[in-house]
């Protein structure tokens, strides 16, 4: 099981080699090398998994060295192998391998080709560290690492101003969440006396419910930032400025699910904090619904998929909030398959249409891109939850637990499921069926199917999306993932007593709702490409949430920075520079006045500060 | 507070005297202004600003050297007054102090602080030239 070290080591090696020699290796050797590194990591993950098959019960910890200890705080660099982390590294490295492979084709000809793989390998390394870390600070390292890589990759095409600002936005939102992570770590340390996951289960028994609630809410803040929950989800939409493989890997399959992973990892504490769980469940289902509504009206293909991702992440949080950790992880894995597939399929479309992302300028692509079309349809049916595709089982498991917790949560979830089937249907019909509307993009020549280095990952992912449900069938004896994860979650996992009939009824409802959504989308969008009645402006603009943030927060922040810029910088500092550099001499005596005024204004501010201090001292502090 | 009263009275008196002189001369002096009388010069152009005066930096160096020795003497006087009481300890300390001052002085002399007239010391001229030649570099560095 020490092979977990290799899981971490391979992407790190890839990163270092590419960083040093990447430019000399060039296109496409650098890409293949990066892919190989991640594939090595995947193979190691399989080795770890096989080694574990016998003894699932006991977690294995690979301790490398002590990092630091300050006071009672001992932090070591150690990696944890248990059901949860193995499940995570398997699907993270697996999906990452496929997406690396796809990127070899997608990024072809980009001037910063090698650098893309540098970032991508660093990302995989950080992600693996995050999911295998055995202490909170080490997990934080991975958490920060994936955040930084996400920032760099979103603004990878930094020549576009939108890409640069999108990167910044993602960064800032995530940093807000990180504060929650650190504070939560401090609270955990203060109350459990340790920041190691090994002590979490035993130590959490001593926590008071209030403390547990505080800890959970702080970490949920971090998770909400990373996993794009209400009200922090807006960055994910802008993140679509990044190259499509990035969107698929980071903003659909892996990084955004880190928040869900974190909550699952903390399940012993979550089990104690019922109020916080309810908050998580409500936020989750609200996110799922709001994003699904917004997805129904988007015209940018990547925006649709992005909203869909937010919506699915909401489902996962619903699972976490209702104590259905296994279901949440199950949904996370299947979602990684079909969402990565949808992104890569969209990327394939975008690639063949010379970068066009507006679905109004697509249509009838079925004829030109058969593989993409078929795989996309399979992805659609999976995400919609049509039986027997994977989404049916994973989403069904989440909804079943939601029903056990509260029928209201379930109802909201079911409505969202209907919307999911519908908006994805809209995407498929408008893009692949109907009339061709891409002439002005392609200038006459027909779109083409993508090269096989791009379609092979599509096919593999499609297969996974179709049969992914096998991982955890709701039939006794076939719930592999459930029994695999059972030792990790233990008693934290909620169990809702339900009769077999009720369960069947719920499953039937899911199936009917999914089929209904598919039917509705066919009725509304079969052969139609535009329908203002169904594409409300409020949904197109994402409920105006982003605009609201922009007004309320971003502009205030910018204003502060601008004041700093104009007043402090231009007036005082730049004034001084020009004052000395000669302009002052040209203006004559005025220059000297300006300059003497500047030091004076410095003094004035210092004295102002002094007066405030003295005022405080004399009025408040002095006896 | 009573012992401060003379000081306050002194201050007030001083202020009254100064103000009184100004006010008195303003009231008593005859005033018959004329344009020519108000002009600073009987002929020539009225300067708009103070002309810059070039002042050799060596004057400052000499002044600094003077101050250094001045301070040394200020310290040596009380030492001399209590030399017997301070004993060997005092001698060592004052010698150390004098040594420090002397090294500073030696440095100054070596750098030509006291050499008036055309500089003959090779090293000093080199520094001056380098400093002069560096002026454009610094500006270009902007």
């Amino acid at each position, binding site marked *: 099981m020490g092979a977990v070290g290799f899981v971490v080591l391979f992407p790190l090696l890839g990163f270092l080699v590419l960083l040093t020699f990447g430019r000399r290796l060039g296109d496409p050797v650098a890409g293949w090398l990066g892919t190989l590194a991640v594939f090595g990591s995947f193979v190691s993950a399989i080795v770890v998994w096989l080694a574990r098959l016998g003894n699932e019960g006991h977690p294995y910890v690979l301790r490398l060295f002590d990092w630091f200890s300050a006071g009672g705080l001992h932090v070591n660099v150690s990696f944890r192998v248990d059901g949860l982390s193995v499940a995570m590294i398997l699907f993270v490295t697996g999906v990452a391998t496929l997406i690396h492979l796809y990127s070899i084709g997608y990024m072809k000809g980009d001037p910063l080709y090698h*650098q893309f793989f540098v970032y991508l390998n660093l990302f995989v390394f950080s992600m693996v560290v995050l999911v295998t870390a055995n202490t909170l600070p080490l997990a934080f390292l991975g958490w920060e690492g994936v955040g930084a890589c996400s920032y760099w990759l979103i603004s990878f095409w930094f020549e576009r101003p939108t890409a640069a600002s999108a990167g910044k936005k993602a960064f800032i939102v995530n940093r807000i969440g990180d504060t929650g992570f650190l504070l939560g770590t401090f609270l955990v340390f203060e109350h459990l006396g340790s920041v190691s996951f090994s002590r979490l289960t035993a130590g959490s028994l001593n926590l008071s419910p209030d403390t547990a609630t505080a800890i959970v809410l702080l970490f949920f803040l971090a998770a909400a930032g990373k996993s794009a929950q209400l009200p922090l989800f807006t960055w994910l939409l802008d993140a679509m400025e990044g190259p499509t493989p990035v969107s698929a890997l980071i903003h659909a399959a892996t990084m955004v699910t880190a928040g869900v992973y974190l909550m699952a990892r903390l399940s012993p504490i979550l089990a104690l904090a019922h109020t916080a769980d309810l908050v998580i469940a409500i936020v989750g289902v609200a996110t799922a619904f709001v994003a699904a509504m917004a997805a129904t009206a988007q015209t940018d293909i990547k925006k649709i998929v992005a909203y869909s991702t937010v919506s699915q992440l909401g489902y996962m949080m619903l699972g976490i909030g209702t104590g259905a950790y296994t279901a949440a992880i199950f949904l996370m894995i299947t979602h990684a398959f079909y969402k990565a597939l949808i992104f890569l399929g969209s990327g394939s479309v975008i690639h063949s249409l010379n970068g066009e992302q507006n679905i109004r300028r697509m249509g009838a692509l079925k004829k030109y891109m058969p593989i993409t079309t078929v795989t996309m349809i399979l992805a659609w049916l999976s995400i919609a939850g049509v039986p027997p595709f994977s989404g049916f089982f994973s989403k069904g498991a989440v909804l079943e637990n939601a029903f056990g917790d509260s029928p209201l949560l379930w109802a909201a979830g079911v409505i969202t499921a209907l919307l999911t089937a519908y908006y994805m249907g809209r995407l498929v019909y408008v893009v692949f069926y109907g009339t061709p509307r891409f002439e002005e993009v392609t200038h006459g020549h027909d779109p083409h199917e993508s090269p096989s280095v791009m379609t092979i990952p599509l096919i593999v992912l499609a297969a996974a999306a179709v049969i992914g449900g096998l991982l955890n069938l709701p039939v006794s004896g076939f719930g592999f993932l459930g029994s695999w994860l059972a030792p990790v979650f233990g008693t934290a996992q909620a169990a809702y007593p339900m009769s077999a009939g009720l369960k069947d009824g719920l499953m039937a409802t899911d199936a009917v709702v999914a089929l209904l959504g598919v039917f509705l989308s066919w009725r509304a969008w079969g052969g139609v490409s535009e329908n203002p009645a169904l594409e409300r402006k409020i949904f197109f603009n994402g409920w105006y949430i982003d605009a609201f943030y922009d007004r309320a927060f971003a502009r205030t922040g910018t204003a502060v920075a601008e004041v700093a810029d104009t007043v402090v910088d231009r007036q005082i500092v730049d004034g001084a520079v020009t*004052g000395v550099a000669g302009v002052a001499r040209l203006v004559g005596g005025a220059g000297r006045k300006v300059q003497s005024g500047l030091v004076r204004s410095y003094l004035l501010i210092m004295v102002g500060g002094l007066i405030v201090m003295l005022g405080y001292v004399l009025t408040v502090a002095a006896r | 507070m009573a012992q401060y009263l003379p000081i306050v009275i002194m201050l007030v008196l001083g202020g009254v005297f100064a103000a009184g002189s100004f006010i008195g001369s303003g009231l008593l002096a005859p005033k018959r202004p004329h344009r020519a009388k108000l002009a600073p010069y009987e002929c020539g152009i009225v300067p708009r600003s103070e002309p810059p005066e070039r002042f050799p930096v060596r004057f400052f160096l000499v002044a600094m050297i003077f101050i250094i020795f001045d301070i040394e003497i200020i310290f040596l006087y009380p030492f001399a007054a209590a030399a017997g009481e301070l004993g060997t300890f005092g001698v060592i300390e004052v010698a150390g102090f004098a040594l420090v001052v002397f090294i500073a002085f030696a440095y100054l002399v070596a750098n030509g602080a006291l050499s008036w007239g055309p500089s003959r010391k090779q090293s000093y001229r080199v520094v001056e030239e380098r400093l002069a030649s560096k*002026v454009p570099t610094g500006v270009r560095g902007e």
Partner: protein
Amino acid sequence: MIFANVLSQLPIALPAISYKAVAPELVLFGGALLILLVSATVGKRELPGLYRAIALVAALAEGGFSGYQLYLAQGAKASLAVAGAIAYDGFSAFAGIVVAAILLLAILIGPGFIKRIAGDGPEFLVLMLISAMGATVMAQGEDLIVIFIGLEILSIALYVMVGYRIGDGLAREAAFKYFILGGFSSAIFLYGIALVYGATGTTNLAKIGAFLALNVLTHDGVLLFGLALLLLGFGFKVSAVPFHLWSPDVYQGAPTSVTGYMAAMAKVGAFAALIRVFDIAFAGQIVQWRPIVVGLAILSMVFGALFALRQRELKKILAYSSINHAGFILLGVYAGTAAAISNTLFYLIAYAVIVVGTFGLVSIVQDSIGVSEGSCSLDQLRGLARSRPALATVTAIMVLAQAGAPFTTGFLAKFSIIVSVVEIREYWVAVVAMLSAAIAVAFYLRIVLAMFRGEPEEVEGERVLAIQGAATEAPARRQALAWIGVSLSLVFTVGFGIFPQPLLDLAARAHIVG
């Protein structure tokens, strides 16, 4: 009458001077004098190798003495010396080690670059050693007057060093501005000392502590007034908002190697004295001064981070970054517990090494692109990763270490300071600190991005020419020693970032004579 007064005091009580206690100062000052003497007597003014060797020996000897003191201080032998005016304890010894580390790095990095703008004379190293001595005096000062003298020794040498690029208007202005504002703050500091003396009847910190422990002031207005004025003096030196205004100008105008040295040395001296004065002597007044210190800390952290966001001048960004760091270190003073003090020391050594290394790298970058030691805009860094990958990577690591990236000392420094704040249960302060660190990361990443983005060819041809011009002067040889210094700071930052335990233990041993 005067003589009668003097005579009435006889016999004079001779102070017992423990030369061991003041050995760091003596060594540094002796080194400075030796360099001056050599330069004055040998007949040849420029002997860079010899000067550098003397300075290095002095720095190492100072570090050795301090290490020895730290070792001695373990056996509870810590004591006061020179009539109680100099403290001689683990804390001052640790500060002495920090000073030695800064000196060592700065001596390796600086003179090679200074040579290009002001020749190979002895003055630079002399000023450096003297200002370092000022910092050790501040760290050891057990009397407010001694601390003030240390402050002045440190400051006056720094004023001169800041103005080293004589030919450049910006540098002249910076030095002059620093001087005037520094004089102002010194005067206020002195006034603060006077008020404290008025309130307690002594300037000796130990006696002040004893006095305040025994007596309750019915009206402590004068004392607190004095404390506020002292805080202004210290706040100016460490560039805490709102007394920071000099620092962006001065950081930009000063030669880059001086900037790094100054940023580190002034902070070490001022913070060491600040801790000794406030956390020890005025520990009883903690309720009164704490709000002021936390106010300064928060303003510094927040504004330091915000103002840097829109800067395009690299050295100004780093100036604001150091303001942000000052806010963090102030939090250690604010927490005031023994653990917080040792965490502050850890922060100081981590910060000092990182900042000297970072500015050293900026010096190397500037040297390579032909703008010796002057100001440097972010655009000039564009494409550095292409032309000098090693340089860009090392710079990125150091900048990220400033940002607090894990596995560097920068992370542990910030982390432990926040732990200290959490330990005194001031959670909101911890939140603000973390948010400011979060904002700060944005501008640190901007520096990294600037280097790793874009092509060197994109910049106008002039720069390419500048690179070639610099290359003809064999930069490799000139930069060799600087690279050694930078590598040392990198090894320190990353090495102790991964295995910080020895350093943390060392900082934990640094107790103050109470």
